[in-house]
Protein backbone atom coordinates (compact mmCIF):
# COMPACT_ATOMS: atom_id res chain seq x y z
CA UNK A 1 0.00 0.00 0.00
CA UNK A 2 2.79 2.35 0.92
CA UNK A 3 4.59 1.83 -2.35
CA UNK A 4 1.48 2.25 -4.46
CA UNK A 5 0.66 5.43 -2.61
CA UNK A 6 4.14 6.75 -3.15
CA UNK A 7 4.06 6.04 -6.84
CA UNK A 8 0.66 7.58 -7.41
CA UNK A 9 1.71 10.59 -5.38
CA UNK A 10 4.45 11.41 -7.88
CA UNK A 11 3.64 14.71 -9.52
CA UNK A 12 2.09 14.39 -12.92
CA UNK A 13 3.96 15.87 -15.84
CA UNK A 14 1.62 18.84 -15.83
CA UNK A 15 2.69 19.73 -12.32
CA UNK A 16 6.41 19.25 -12.78
CA UNK A 17 7.04 22.91 -13.42
CA UNK A 18 5.68 23.77 -10.00
CA UNK A 19 8.42 21.95 -8.16
CA UNK A 20 10.95 24.57 -9.09
CA UNK A 21 8.73 27.56 -8.54
CA UNK A 22 9.34 29.10 -5.14
CA UNK A 23 6.04 30.88 -4.69
CA UNK A 24 3.97 27.77 -4.19
CA UNK A 25 3.67 25.36 -1.30
CA UNK A 26 5.98 22.38 -1.18
CA UNK A 27 5.63 19.59 1.33
CA UNK A 28 8.26 16.86 1.59
CA UNK A 29 7.44 13.65 3.43
CA UNK A 30 5.36 15.60 5.93
CA UNK A 31 3.84 13.62 8.80
CA UNK A 32 1.82 14.82 11.76
CA UNK A 33 0.77 13.08 14.96
CA UNK A 34 -1.94 14.03 17.46
CA UNK A 35 -0.45 12.26 20.44
CA UNK A 36 -0.32 8.60 19.43
CA UNK A 37 -2.52 9.03 16.36
CA UNK A 38 -0.82 9.72 13.05
CA UNK A 39 -3.10 12.03 11.09
CA UNK A 40 -0.77 12.67 8.15
CA UNK A 41 1.54 10.05 6.72
CA UNK A 42 4.46 11.13 4.53
CA UNK A 43 2.62 13.73 2.49
CA UNK A 44 4.63 15.09 -0.43
CA UNK A 45 2.92 17.63 -2.63
CA UNK A 46 3.85 20.57 -4.73
CA UNK A 47 1.06 23.10 -4.82
CA UNK A 48 1.31 25.50 -7.71
CA UNK A 49 1.44 29.23 -7.05
CA UNK A 50 -1.41 31.40 -8.23
CA UNK A 51 -3.74 28.45 -8.60
CA UNK A 52 -6.70 27.15 -6.66
CA UNK A 53 -5.97 23.72 -5.27
CA UNK A 54 -8.83 21.70 -3.77
CA UNK A 55 -8.19 19.19 -1.00
CA UNK A 56 -10.78 16.44 -1.21
CA UNK A 57 -11.34 13.15 0.55
CA UNK A 58 -13.67 11.51 3.04
CA UNK A 59 -14.10 12.82 6.60
CA UNK A 60 -11.06 12.17 8.74
CA UNK A 61 -8.69 11.75 5.80
CA UNK A 62 -6.44 14.53 7.08
CA UNK A 63 -7.24 17.25 4.55
CA UNK A 64 -8.10 19.85 7.17
CA UNK A 65 -5.05 18.86 9.20
CA UNK A 66 -2.88 19.35 6.13
CA UNK A 67 -4.49 22.73 5.45
CA UNK A 68 -3.95 23.85 9.02
CA UNK A 69 -0.32 22.76 8.81
CA UNK A 70 0.30 25.41 6.16
CA UNK A 71 0.00 28.19 8.72
CA UNK A 72 0.87 26.00 11.69
CA UNK A 73 -2.52 26.26 13.35
CA UNK A 74 -2.32 22.71 14.64
CA UNK A 75 0.37 23.55 17.11
CA UNK A 76 -1.90 24.93 19.77
CA UNK A 77 -3.32 21.46 20.32
CA UNK A 78 -1.37 19.56 22.95
CA UNK A 79 0.66 16.56 21.82
CA UNK A 80 1.08 17.57 18.18
CA UNK A 81 4.36 16.43 16.59
CA UNK A 82 5.51 16.78 13.01
CA UNK A 83 8.26 15.48 10.78
CA UNK A 84 9.26 16.35 7.23
CA UNK A 85 9.19 19.73 5.54
CA UNK A 86 6.77 22.37 4.39
CA UNK A 87 8.17 25.12 2.21
CA UNK A 88 6.16 28.22 1.40
CA UNK A 89 7.61 30.91 -0.85
CA UNK A 90 10.91 29.08 -0.68
CA UNK A 91 11.08 29.20 3.11
CA UNK A 92 10.82 26.16 5.38
CA UNK A 93 8.00 27.22 7.67
CA UNK A 94 8.87 24.60 10.27
CA UNK A 95 12.31 26.12 10.82
CA UNK A 96 12.89 27.28 14.40
CA UNK A 97 13.52 30.89 13.44
CA UNK A 98 10.12 31.22 11.75
CA UNK A 99 7.78 33.56 13.62
CA UNK A 100 4.16 32.41 13.60
CA UNK A 101 3.11 36.04 13.57
CA UNK A 102 4.98 36.75 10.33
CA UNK A 103 3.95 33.43 8.80
CA UNK A 104 0.25 34.04 9.40
CA UNK A 105 0.50 37.50 7.92
CA UNK A 106 1.42 35.87 4.62
CA UNK A 107 -0.70 32.75 4.98
CA UNK A 108 -4.26 33.64 5.95
CA UNK A 109 -7.09 31.29 6.76
CA UNK A 110 -10.85 31.34 6.23
CA UNK A 111 -12.93 29.06 8.43
CA UNK A 112 -16.05 26.94 7.98
CA UNK A 113 -18.21 29.23 10.03
CA UNK A 114 -17.70 32.91 9.24
CA UNK A 115 -15.98 34.39 12.29
CA UNK A 116 -16.06 38.17 11.99
CA UNK A 117 -14.73 39.93 15.06
CA UNK A 118 -17.25 41.68 17.32
CA UNK A 119 -16.28 45.05 15.85
CA UNK A 120 -17.56 47.24 13.04
CA UNK A 121 -17.17 46.20 9.41
CA UNK A 122 -14.52 48.86 9.00
CA UNK A 123 -12.57 47.77 12.06
CA UNK A 124 -12.69 44.16 10.93
CA UNK A 125 -11.00 45.00 7.65
CA UNK A 126 -8.29 47.19 9.16
CA UNK A 127 -7.78 44.88 12.15
CA UNK A 128 -4.82 43.15 10.56
CA UNK A 129 -3.21 46.41 9.44
CA UNK A 130 -3.51 47.83 12.92
CA UNK A 131 -2.05 44.67 14.44
CA UNK A 132 1.06 44.93 12.36
CA UNK A 133 1.32 48.64 11.79
CA UNK A 134 2.25 49.82 15.24
CA UNK A 135 0.61 52.91 16.66
CA UNK A 136 -0.48 55.54 14.16
CA UNK A 137 1.46 54.13 11.25
CA UNK A 138 -1.42 54.64 8.84
CA UNK A 139 -3.33 57.85 8.44
CA UNK A 140 -7.09 57.69 8.24
CA UNK A 141 -7.14 58.23 4.50
CA UNK A 142 -4.76 55.35 3.84
CA UNK A 143 -6.84 53.14 6.08
CA UNK A 144 -10.02 54.05 4.25
CA UNK A 145 -8.36 53.31 0.94
CA UNK A 146 -7.23 49.90 2.13
CA UNK A 147 -10.74 49.12 3.39
CA UNK A 148 -12.35 50.08 0.10
CA UNK A 149 -9.82 48.11 -1.91
CA UNK A 150 -10.27 44.96 0.18
CA UNK A 151 -14.06 45.18 0.18
CA UNK A 152 -14.16 45.80 -3.57
CA UNK A 153 -11.97 42.77 -4.12
CA UNK A 154 -14.57 40.56 -2.41
CA UNK A 155 -17.55 42.28 -4.10
CA UNK A 156 -18.81 43.59 -0.77
CA UNK A 157 -18.10 47.29 -1.14
CA UNK A 158 -21.38 48.30 -2.78
CA UNK A 159 -23.43 46.43 -0.21
CA UNK A 160 -21.77 47.91 2.87
CA UNK A 161 -20.14 51.19 1.82
CA UNK A 162 -22.86 53.21 3.55
CA UNK A 163 -22.71 51.33 6.83
CA UNK A 164 -19.06 50.61 7.48
CA UNK A 165 -19.66 51.39 11.13
CA UNK A 166 -22.29 48.66 11.49
CA UNK A 167 -21.47 45.58 13.47
CA UNK A 168 -19.94 42.88 11.32
CA UNK A 169 -21.76 40.16 13.25
CA UNK A 170 -25.07 41.54 12.00
CA UNK A 171 -24.27 40.96 8.32
CA UNK A 172 -25.76 38.02 6.44
CA UNK A 173 -23.66 34.86 6.59
CA UNK A 174 -22.51 35.23 2.99
CA UNK A 175 -21.40 38.79 3.61
CA UNK A 176 -19.71 37.74 6.84
CA UNK A 177 -17.71 35.11 5.00
CA UNK A 178 -16.73 37.60 2.31
CA UNK A 179 -15.68 40.00 5.04
CA UNK A 180 -13.56 37.26 6.60
CA UNK A 181 -11.77 36.94 3.26
CA UNK A 182 -11.53 40.70 2.84
CA UNK A 183 -9.94 41.16 6.23
CA UNK A 184 -6.98 39.02 5.15
CA UNK A 185 -6.26 41.05 2.03
CA UNK A 186 -4.82 44.32 3.41
CA UNK A 187 -1.91 42.26 4.77
CA UNK A 188 -1.07 41.27 1.17
CA UNK A 189 -1.00 37.55 1.85
CA UNK A 190 0.62 35.19 -0.61
CA UNK A 191 -1.44 32.14 0.34
CA UNK A 192 -5.11 31.86 1.34
CA UNK A 193 -6.24 28.73 3.13
CA UNK A 194 -9.96 27.97 3.14
CA UNK A 195 -11.49 25.29 5.31
CA UNK A 196 -14.85 24.45 3.71
CA UNK A 197 -15.66 28.15 3.37
CA UNK A 198 -19.12 27.49 1.95
CA UNK A 199 -20.37 24.74 4.23
CA UNK A 200 -22.40 27.17 6.33
CA UNK A 201 -23.83 28.95 3.28
CA UNK A 202 -26.85 28.31 1.09
CA UNK A 203 -26.58 27.57 -2.62
CA UNK A 204 -26.82 31.18 -3.74
CA UNK A 205 -24.24 32.39 -1.25
CA UNK A 206 -21.99 29.52 -2.22
CA UNK A 207 -22.19 30.58 -5.84
CA UNK A 208 -21.29 34.12 -4.84
CA UNK A 209 -18.25 33.01 -2.87
CA UNK A 210 -17.16 30.74 -5.70
CA UNK A 211 -17.40 33.63 -8.12
CA UNK A 212 -15.23 35.59 -5.76
CA UNK A 213 -12.67 32.77 -5.60
CA UNK A 214 -12.62 32.64 -9.37
CA UNK A 215 -11.78 36.33 -9.47
CA UNK A 216 -8.91 35.87 -7.02
CA UNK A 217 -7.21 33.20 -9.10
CA UNK A 218 -3.64 34.07 -10.17
CA UNK A 219 -3.29 36.75 -7.53
CA UNK A 220 -3.14 34.35 -4.60
CA UNK A 221 -2.20 30.76 -4.05
CA UNK A 222 -5.46 29.34 -2.74
CA UNK A 223 -5.89 26.00 -1.03
CA UNK A 224 -9.48 25.02 -0.34
CA UNK A 225 -10.80 22.05 1.62
CA UNK A 226 -14.19 20.92 0.43
CA UNK A 227 -16.62 18.06 0.89
CA UNK A 228 -18.45 19.13 -2.19
CA UNK A 229 -17.14 17.31 -5.28
CA UNK A 230 -19.04 19.59 -7.62
CA UNK A 231 -17.50 22.61 -5.96
CA UNK A 232 -13.99 21.17 -6.23
CA UNK A 233 -14.66 20.61 -9.90
CA UNK A 234 -16.05 24.08 -10.44
CA UNK A 235 -13.49 26.21 -8.66
CA UNK A 236 -10.18 24.39 -8.53
CA UNK A 237 -7.35 24.21 -11.02
CA UNK A 238 -5.65 21.33 -9.25
CA UNK A 239 -6.98 18.71 -6.95
CA UNK A 240 -5.43 16.63 -4.19
CA UNK A 241 -7.24 13.49 -3.13
CA UNK A 242 -6.42 12.22 0.36
CA UNK A 243 -7.37 9.03 2.18
CA UNK A 244 -6.45 7.93 5.71
CA UNK A 245 -3.75 10.54 6.14
CA UNK A 246 -2.05 9.81 2.81
CA UNK A 247 -1.95 11.79 -0.39
CA UNK A 248 -3.42 9.43 -2.97
CA UNK A 249 -3.51 11.56 -6.08
CA UNK A 250 -2.59 15.08 -7.08
CA UNK A 251 -3.25 16.50 -10.51
CA UNK A 252 -5.05 19.07 -12.62
CA UNK A 253 -8.71 18.96 -11.65
CA UNK A 254 -10.04 18.24 -15.11
CA UNK A 255 -7.72 15.30 -15.51
CA UNK A 256 -8.27 13.95 -12.02
CA UNK A 257 -12.00 13.95 -12.35
CA UNK A 258 -12.18 12.59 -15.88
CA UNK A 259 -9.32 10.21 -15.77
CA UNK A 260 -8.25 9.39 -12.21
CA UNK A 261 -5.09 7.31 -12.02
CA UNK A 262 -5.87 5.64 -8.73
CA UNK A 263 -8.78 3.24 -8.30
CA UNK A 264 -9.60 4.75 -4.87
CA UNK A 265 -9.82 8.25 -6.31
CA UNK A 266 -12.14 6.99 -8.98
CA UNK A 267 -14.40 5.28 -6.47
CA UNK A 268 -14.50 8.38 -4.29
CA UNK A 269 -15.34 10.86 -6.98
CA UNK A 270 -17.99 8.53 -8.29
CA UNK A 271 -19.53 8.65 -4.83
CA UNK A 272 -18.99 5.01 -3.90
CA UNK A 273 -17.72 6.00 -0.45
CA UNK A 274 -16.95 9.11 1.58
Amino acid at each position, binding site marked *: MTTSTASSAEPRPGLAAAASADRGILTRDFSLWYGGFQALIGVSASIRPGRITALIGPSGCGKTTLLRSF*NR*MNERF*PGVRTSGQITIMGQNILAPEVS*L*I*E*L*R*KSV*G*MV*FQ*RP*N*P*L*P*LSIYDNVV*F*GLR*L*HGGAGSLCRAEEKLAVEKALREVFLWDAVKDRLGA*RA*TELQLEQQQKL*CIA*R*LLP*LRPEVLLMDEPCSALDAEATAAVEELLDGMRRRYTIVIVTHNMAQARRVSDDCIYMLSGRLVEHGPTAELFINPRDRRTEEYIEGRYG
Partner: protein
Amino acid sequence: MSPPEAGPSTLGSGPDRAANLFAATDLTRRKLRAQRIAKYAFGAMAAAIVLPLLLILAYLLVRAWPMLSWGFITEVPANFMRGGGVWPALVGTLYLVTFSLLVAAPIGVLAGIYLNEFARDNWFTRAVNLAVINLAGVPSIVHALFGVGAFVIFAGLGKSILAASLTLAIMTLPVIIVSTKEALNAVPMAFRQACWNLGASRWQVIRTIVLPNSISGILTGLILQVSRAAGDTAPIMFTGVVFYMAVEPGTLLPYSPTDQCMALAYHLYTVTTQVQDAPEALPYATAVVLIGFVFVFNSAAIILRTRLRAKKKW
Protein backbone atom coordinates in the same frame (compact mmCIF):
# COMPACT_ATOMS: atom_id res chain seq x y z
CA MET B 1 -67.93 4.48 6.47
CA SER B 2 -67.05 4.74 10.15
CA PRO B 3 -63.62 6.02 11.22
CA PRO B 4 -61.21 3.30 12.23
CA GLU B 5 -60.93 2.34 15.89
CA ALA B 6 -58.66 4.80 17.75
CA GLY B 7 -55.09 3.45 18.23
CA PRO B 8 -53.89 1.48 21.25
CA SER B 9 -56.50 1.35 24.01
CA THR B 10 -54.14 2.86 26.62
CA LEU B 11 -54.08 6.15 24.77
CA GLY B 12 -57.66 6.83 25.85
CA SER B 13 -60.64 6.13 23.64
CA GLY B 14 -63.38 7.98 25.50
CA PRO B 15 -66.51 9.22 23.84
CA ASP B 16 -64.99 12.64 23.02
CA ARG B 17 -62.22 10.90 21.13
CA ALA B 18 -64.48 10.59 18.15
CA ALA B 19 -65.54 14.22 18.37
CA ASN B 20 -62.08 15.62 17.72
CA LEU B 21 -59.09 13.66 16.55
CA PHE B 22 -56.72 16.04 18.36
CA ALA B 23 -58.61 16.40 21.68
CA ALA B 24 -56.48 15.76 24.77
CA THR B 25 -56.54 12.18 25.96
CA ASP B 26 -56.43 11.19 29.64
CA LEU B 27 -52.72 10.58 29.36
CA THR B 28 -52.18 14.02 27.85
CA ARG B 29 -54.24 15.60 30.62
CA ARG B 30 -52.15 13.80 33.22
CA LYS B 31 -48.98 15.13 31.58
CA LEU B 32 -50.34 18.66 31.52
CA ARG B 33 -51.36 18.41 35.18
CA ALA B 34 -47.89 17.26 36.17
CA GLN B 35 -46.40 20.13 34.24
CA ARG B 36 -48.69 22.62 35.94
CA ILE B 37 -47.85 21.29 39.38
CA ALA B 38 -44.13 21.48 38.61
CA LYS B 39 -44.48 25.02 37.35
CA TYR B 40 -46.24 26.27 40.48
CA ALA B 41 -44.02 24.32 42.87
CA PHE B 42 -40.84 25.62 41.29
CA GLY B 43 -42.28 29.12 41.08
CA ALA B 44 -43.03 28.99 44.79
CA MET B 45 -39.42 28.07 45.49
CA ALA B 46 -38.21 30.99 43.39
CA ALA B 47 -40.53 33.30 45.30
CA ALA B 48 -39.31 31.78 48.57
CA ILE B 49 -35.86 33.14 47.80
CA VAL B 50 -37.09 36.69 47.36
CA LEU B 51 -39.51 36.73 50.26
CA PRO B 52 -37.00 36.30 53.12
CA LEU B 53 -34.80 38.95 51.56
CA LEU B 54 -37.63 41.46 51.53
CA LEU B 55 -38.70 40.42 55.04
CA ILE B 56 -35.17 40.85 56.38
CA LEU B 57 -34.80 44.26 54.79
CA ALA B 58 -38.21 45.39 56.07
CA TYR B 59 -37.55 44.03 59.56
CA LEU B 60 -34.14 45.74 59.71
CA LEU B 61 -35.57 49.06 58.59
CA VAL B 62 -38.43 48.93 61.07
CA ARG B 63 -36.20 48.03 64.01
CA ALA B 64 -33.55 50.55 63.00
CA TRP B 65 -35.99 53.37 62.40
CA PRO B 66 -35.65 55.14 65.79
CA MET B 67 -31.92 55.68 65.30
CA LEU B 68 -31.71 56.22 61.54
CA SER B 69 -30.74 59.76 60.65
CA TRP B 70 -28.09 61.52 58.61
CA GLY B 71 -26.30 62.13 61.87
CA PHE B 72 -26.05 58.40 62.54
CA ILE B 73 -23.89 58.12 59.44
CA THR B 74 -21.70 61.19 59.95
CA GLU B 75 -21.17 61.20 63.69
CA VAL B 76 -18.82 59.24 65.89
CA PRO B 77 -20.03 56.88 68.62
CA ALA B 78 -20.90 58.64 71.85
CA ASN B 79 -21.93 57.80 75.37
CA PHE B 80 -19.74 54.68 75.62
CA MET B 81 -20.95 53.33 72.25
CA ARG B 82 -24.55 53.64 73.26
CA GLY B 83 -25.32 56.62 71.04
CA GLY B 84 -23.92 58.82 68.32
CA GLY B 85 -23.15 57.40 64.88
CA VAL B 86 -20.98 54.97 63.00
CA TRP B 87 -18.76 57.27 60.92
CA PRO B 88 -15.42 55.75 61.98
CA ALA B 89 -16.70 52.26 61.27
CA LEU B 90 -18.10 53.26 57.88
CA VAL B 91 -14.85 54.90 56.81
CA GLY B 92 -12.91 51.95 58.23
CA THR B 93 -14.90 49.52 56.11
CA LEU B 94 -14.34 51.75 53.09
CA TYR B 95 -10.59 51.66 53.77
CA LEU B 96 -10.50 47.91 54.22
CA VAL B 97 -12.56 47.17 51.11
CA THR B 98 -10.65 49.63 48.94
CA PHE B 99 -7.20 48.48 50.01
CA SER B 100 -8.09 44.81 49.71
CA LEU B 101 -9.57 45.40 46.27
CA LEU B 102 -6.50 47.37 45.19
CA VAL B 103 -4.42 44.33 46.00
CA ALA B 104 -6.73 41.49 45.05
CA ALA B 105 -8.24 42.88 41.83
CA PRO B 106 -5.04 43.28 39.79
CA ILE B 107 -3.47 40.08 41.06
CA GLY B 108 -6.67 38.10 40.65
CA VAL B 109 -7.55 39.42 37.20
CA LEU B 110 -4.01 39.08 35.84
CA ALA B 111 -3.69 35.55 37.26
CA GLY B 112 -7.07 34.67 35.75
CA ILE B 113 -5.93 35.99 32.36
CA TYR B 114 -2.74 33.97 32.59
CA LEU B 115 -4.56 30.78 33.53
CA ASN B 116 -7.20 31.10 30.83
CA GLU B 117 -5.25 32.65 27.96
CA PHE B 118 -1.61 31.67 28.28
CA ALA B 119 -1.24 28.61 30.47
CA ARG B 120 -0.87 25.28 28.77
CA ASP B 121 -2.41 22.22 30.33
CA ASN B 122 0.52 20.93 32.37
CA TRP B 123 1.20 19.93 35.97
CA PHE B 124 1.95 23.51 37.00
CA THR B 125 -1.34 24.87 35.67
CA ARG B 126 -3.25 22.00 37.19
CA ALA B 127 -1.56 22.58 40.56
CA VAL B 128 -2.42 26.30 40.45
CA ASN B 129 -6.02 25.61 39.51
CA LEU B 130 -6.36 23.06 42.28
CA ALA B 131 -4.89 25.50 44.80
CA VAL B 132 -7.24 28.24 43.67
CA ILE B 133 -10.32 26.06 44.04
CA ASN B 134 -9.26 24.81 47.45
CA LEU B 135 -8.39 28.29 48.67
CA ALA B 136 -11.85 29.47 47.67
CA GLY B 137 -13.30 26.90 50.03
CA VAL B 138 -11.23 27.81 53.09
CA PRO B 139 -13.36 29.26 55.93
CA SER B 140 -12.73 32.93 56.62
CA ILE B 141 -11.63 32.30 60.21
CA VAL B 142 -8.75 30.23 58.83
CA HIS B 143 -7.81 33.14 56.57
CA ALA B 144 -7.85 35.25 59.73
CA LEU B 145 -5.33 33.01 61.44
CA PHE B 146 -3.18 33.02 58.33
CA GLY B 147 -3.38 36.82 58.31
CA VAL B 148 -2.24 37.02 61.90
CA GLY B 149 0.72 34.77 61.21
CA ALA B 150 1.74 36.16 57.85
CA PHE B 151 0.96 39.87 57.98
CA VAL B 152 0.60 40.89 61.63
CA ILE B 153 3.53 38.89 63.00
CA PHE B 154 5.82 37.68 60.20
CA ALA B 155 5.65 40.75 57.95
CA GLY B 156 5.70 42.96 61.01
CA LEU B 157 2.72 45.04 59.99
CA GLY B 158 1.16 44.68 63.42
CA LYS B 159 -2.57 44.95 63.82
CA SER B 160 -3.31 47.51 61.14
CA ILE B 161 -5.51 48.43 58.20
CA LEU B 162 -2.78 47.05 55.94
CA ALA B 163 -2.69 43.66 57.63
CA ALA B 164 -6.48 43.41 57.69
CA SER B 165 -6.81 44.48 54.04
CA LEU B 166 -4.20 41.98 52.93
CA THR B 167 -6.03 39.25 54.82
CA LEU B 168 -9.26 40.21 53.06
CA ALA B 169 -7.38 40.25 49.77
CA ILE B 170 -6.13 36.71 50.32
CA MET B 171 -9.66 35.65 51.13
CA THR B 172 -11.22 37.21 48.02
CA LEU B 173 -8.41 36.41 45.59
CA PRO B 174 -9.35 32.84 44.65
CA VAL B 175 -12.93 33.73 43.80
CA ILE B 176 -11.78 36.69 41.71
CA ILE B 177 -9.43 34.39 39.80
CA VAL B 178 -12.16 31.83 39.17
CA SER B 179 -14.75 34.39 38.06
CA THR B 180 -12.21 36.11 35.80
CA LYS B 181 -11.37 32.81 34.17
CA GLU B 182 -15.03 32.07 33.59
CA ALA B 183 -15.67 35.49 32.09
CA LEU B 184 -12.74 35.05 29.69
CA ASN B 185 -13.79 31.53 28.85
CA ALA B 186 -17.18 32.81 27.73
CA VAL B 187 -15.55 34.73 24.85
CA PRO B 188 -15.94 32.48 21.80
CA MET B 189 -12.79 30.69 20.65
CA ALA B 190 -13.59 31.69 17.06
CA PHE B 191 -12.65 35.30 17.86
CA ARG B 192 -9.23 34.26 19.10
CA GLN B 193 -8.68 32.01 16.10
CA ALA B 194 -9.64 34.81 13.73
CA CYS B 195 -7.07 37.09 15.35
CA TRP B 196 -4.29 34.54 15.49
CA ASN B 197 -4.82 33.91 11.82
CA LEU B 198 -4.16 37.54 11.09
CA GLY B 199 -0.87 37.19 12.91
CA ALA B 200 -1.96 38.72 16.19
CA SER B 201 0.09 37.97 19.26
CA ARG B 202 -1.73 36.52 22.23
CA TRP B 203 -1.49 39.79 24.09
CA GLN B 204 -2.90 41.73 21.14
CA VAL B 205 -5.85 39.36 21.02
CA ILE B 206 -6.44 39.73 24.74
CA ARG B 207 -6.20 43.51 24.66
CA THR B 208 -8.26 44.19 21.57
CA ILE B 209 -10.90 41.44 21.62
CA VAL B 210 -10.97 39.23 24.70
CA LEU B 211 -10.85 41.82 27.48
CA PRO B 212 -13.35 44.28 25.97
CA ASN B 213 -15.81 41.41 25.60
CA SER B 214 -15.34 39.94 29.05
CA ILE B 215 -14.88 43.02 31.21
CA SER B 216 -18.49 43.02 32.38
CA GLY B 217 -18.19 39.45 33.60
CA ILE B 218 -14.91 40.22 35.33
CA LEU B 219 -16.51 43.20 37.07
CA THR B 220 -19.36 41.02 38.29
CA GLY B 221 -16.87 38.79 40.06
CA LEU B 222 -15.23 41.81 41.66
CA ILE B 223 -18.56 43.25 42.82
CA LEU B 224 -19.46 40.07 44.64
CA GLN B 225 -16.15 40.10 46.43
CA VAL B 226 -16.67 43.68 47.61
CA SER B 227 -19.78 42.57 49.44
CA ARG B 228 -17.92 39.67 50.94
CA ALA B 229 -15.00 41.76 52.09
CA ALA B 230 -17.28 44.39 53.59
CA GLY B 231 -19.40 41.87 55.45
CA ASP B 232 -16.93 39.37 56.80
CA THR B 233 -15.89 39.91 60.42
CA ALA B 234 -13.58 37.01 61.15
CA PRO B 235 -10.62 37.93 58.93
CA ILE B 236 -10.39 41.47 60.29
CA MET B 237 -11.08 41.03 63.98
CA PHE B 238 -7.61 39.62 64.73
CA THR B 239 -5.72 41.60 62.14
CA GLY B 240 -6.67 45.23 62.36
CA VAL B 241 -10.03 46.35 63.67
CA VAL B 242 -10.73 47.75 67.09
CA PHE B 243 -13.65 48.25 69.37
CA TYR B 244 -13.38 52.01 69.38
CA MET B 245 -11.21 54.55 67.65
CA ALA B 246 -11.53 58.26 68.23
CA VAL B 247 -11.74 60.22 64.97
CA GLU B 248 -13.11 63.58 63.98
CA PRO B 249 -16.73 63.21 62.89
CA GLY B 250 -17.21 63.50 59.14
CA THR B 251 -13.52 63.49 58.18
CA LEU B 252 -12.81 61.47 55.07
CA LEU B 253 -9.24 60.46 55.83
CA PRO B 254 -9.02 59.83 59.52
CA TYR B 255 -6.82 56.75 59.29
CA SER B 256 -3.37 56.04 58.00
CA PRO B 257 -2.76 52.57 56.56
CA THR B 258 -0.70 51.54 59.56
CA ASP B 259 -3.45 52.51 62.01
CA GLN B 260 -6.04 50.17 63.29
CA CYS B 261 -9.60 51.10 62.46
CA MET B 262 -13.22 50.41 63.21
CA ALA B 263 -15.33 48.49 60.73
CA LEU B 264 -19.09 48.15 60.31
CA ALA B 265 -19.25 44.38 60.50
CA TYR B 266 -17.16 44.28 63.66
CA HIS B 267 -19.05 47.26 65.13
CA LEU B 268 -22.27 45.37 64.63
CA TYR B 269 -20.76 42.44 66.49
CA THR B 270 -19.49 44.52 69.40
CA VAL B 271 -22.60 46.61 69.98
CA THR B 272 -24.62 43.42 70.01
CA THR B 273 -22.42 41.43 72.36
CA GLN B 274 -20.06 43.74 74.23
CA VAL B 275 -21.95 46.95 75.03
CA GLN B 276 -24.36 46.84 77.92
CA ASP B 277 -27.58 48.83 77.75
CA ALA B 278 -27.09 49.74 74.09
CA PRO B 279 -30.31 51.00 72.55
CA GLU B 280 -32.15 48.22 70.80
CA ALA B 281 -32.15 50.02 67.47
CA LEU B 282 -28.35 50.51 67.41
CA PRO B 283 -27.28 47.14 65.90
CA TYR B 284 -30.14 47.28 63.41
CA ALA B 285 -29.19 50.76 62.32
CA THR B 286 -25.57 49.63 61.93
CA ALA B 287 -26.72 46.72 59.79
CA VAL B 288 -28.74 49.07 57.60
CA VAL B 289 -25.66 51.25 57.05
CA LEU B 290 -23.60 48.17 56.17
CA ILE B 291 -26.18 46.99 53.67
CA GLY B 292 -26.47 50.51 52.29
CA PHE B 293 -22.68 50.67 51.87
CA VAL B 294 -22.61 47.42 49.91
CA PHE B 295 -25.60 48.56 47.89
CA VAL B 296 -23.98 51.86 46.90
CA PHE B 297 -20.68 50.16 46.05
CA ASN B 298 -22.48 47.55 43.95
CA SER B 299 -24.70 50.05 42.19
CA ALA B 300 -21.69 51.98 41.01
CA ALA B 301 -20.16 48.81 39.63
CA ILE B 302 -23.43 47.69 38.06
CA ILE B 303 -23.83 51.02 36.27
CA LEU B 304 -20.28 50.75 34.99
CA ARG B 305 -20.93 47.19 33.90
CA THR B 306 -24.08 48.10 32.02
CA ARG B 307 -22.23 50.83 30.18
CA LEU B 308 -19.52 48.36 29.16
CA ARG B 309 -21.99 45.64 28.23
CA ALA B 310 -23.81 47.99 25.91
CA LYS B 311 -20.64 47.99 23.84
CA LYS B 312 -20.53 44.20 23.59
CA LYS B 313 -21.08 43.30 20.00
CA TRP B 314 -22.13 39.74 19.46
